[in-house]
């Protein structure tokens, strides 16, 4: 970026892993209800929040994501009965580890959001996006070669 160029507003890159059975439909509902959430959020549909491998999250940061959010069914409502319980334990430990290593605290989040909660989905995304904007660009887990 040249020095003369006007400083543009920071647009974060946010990745949302959405469970097919709830929040993915929630995002749909948010859309059809004309609720807005930032276009910076890129949704990846997963069959269940339990499908999200910790490696996905680390890879996302490596490839330039500034925030990663995982949306799944409310505890007790998992389509596969228990997937989100396992996901909850895994993500708890992973987030704690990331914090421990001094990387990206606050850039990760888990939210339970059903298919009926279009409003919650859009609010969550707006909130998370604001939070990431305040944190700025993610640098600690990124790979230099993927930067622009």
């Amino acid at each position: 970026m040249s020095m003369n160029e006007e400083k543009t507003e920071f647009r974060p890159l946010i990745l949302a892993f959405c469970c097919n059975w709830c929040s993915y439909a929630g995002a749909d509902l948010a859309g059809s209800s004309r609720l807005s959430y930032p276009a910076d959020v890129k949704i990846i549909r997963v069959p269940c929040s339990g499908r999200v491998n910790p490696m996905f999250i680390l890879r996302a940061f490596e490839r330039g994501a500034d925030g990663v959010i995982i949306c799944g069914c409310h505890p007790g409502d998992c389509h596969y009965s228990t997937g989100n319980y396992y996901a909850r334990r895994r993500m708890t430990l992973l987030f704690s580890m990331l914090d421990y290593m001094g990387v990206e605290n606050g850039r990760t989040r888990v939210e339970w959001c059903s298919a009926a909660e279009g409003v919650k989905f859009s609010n969550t995304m707006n909130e998370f996006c604001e939070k990431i904007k305040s944190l700025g660009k993610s640098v600690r887990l990124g790979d230099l070669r993927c930067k622009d």
Partner: protein
Amino acid sequence: MQGLKDRLKELLTDGTVVRILGWKKGDMPYNPEPAIFNSAEELEDFVYDGFCGANLSKMMIEATKLEGKTAVCLKPCDTYSFNQLIREHRVNRDNAYIVAVGCRGKLDIEKIKKGTKGITAVSGTELDGSDEITVNTIYGDKTVAYTDALLDRCHVCKGKEHMISDEIWGESKDTADRERFEEIERIEAMSPEERFEFFKKELSKCIRCNACRNVCPACSCRKCIFDNTKFDAQQKANVVSFEERMFHIIRAFHVAGRCTDCGECSRVCPEGIPLHLFNRKFIKDIDKFYGEFQAGKDPEAQCPLTDFTFEDIEPGERG
């Protein structure tokens, strides 16, 4: 040690076992190597002293696949790993005969070598040896207090009890003189920037030799995700700092809840990276969030990561 050697010979000659997994005398006074002994003659080279830190339980995965029983010498902390391997159906208990050997802490040659070169002999490291070990070098002799040369893991010893055994040989000693989570708490108390710098400095030494993974008794996957050529997880160099951070987080994650904190990863690291800091952090978190759990203590217990309760805390909360 002679007593142990005689007992092992007996086990071979009376047909209890057909082979013995133990340690063989090394070419230096301080580097015994894990070895399989098939006969009483081979056992002449058997050794058991303060340098036999290697955890032999992982080698039992292959050994118990062989025909006939294998006797294995396990120290108290090794028995946790062995139990965990039974839990995961990795070893065949029926093909194993466990000689639970006593332990008074194992030695770290790197600590002895600090400021010492040209070692020709080290004495007093046997189980019934003295509190002071004598190191002879071509540049002169010196003595080191046994406790000063202990491996770091022995300072947070899990106790002198063997978790599993067929017979016990020798007295053990609980060498713990530090709090297990002291180091973790010290790091947690740092600012995020300090923590980041600390791990960056340590991990940037990583040469991706995979010794930590290959020695780890919990890393018993037939095909490791980091060897999978179909997926770009496979990296052989610390190309950028991200790679080794990813490797160590994921590796620690894969053994979380199964890691017995045996400390082999830190012992074998050629660059001296304190890798146990990752595993122990997970253990501390698991203890705090889901209740005290020691992998390998009870071969029937459910691993915390394959279990859940309805009331688990939410990710991001500090419990």
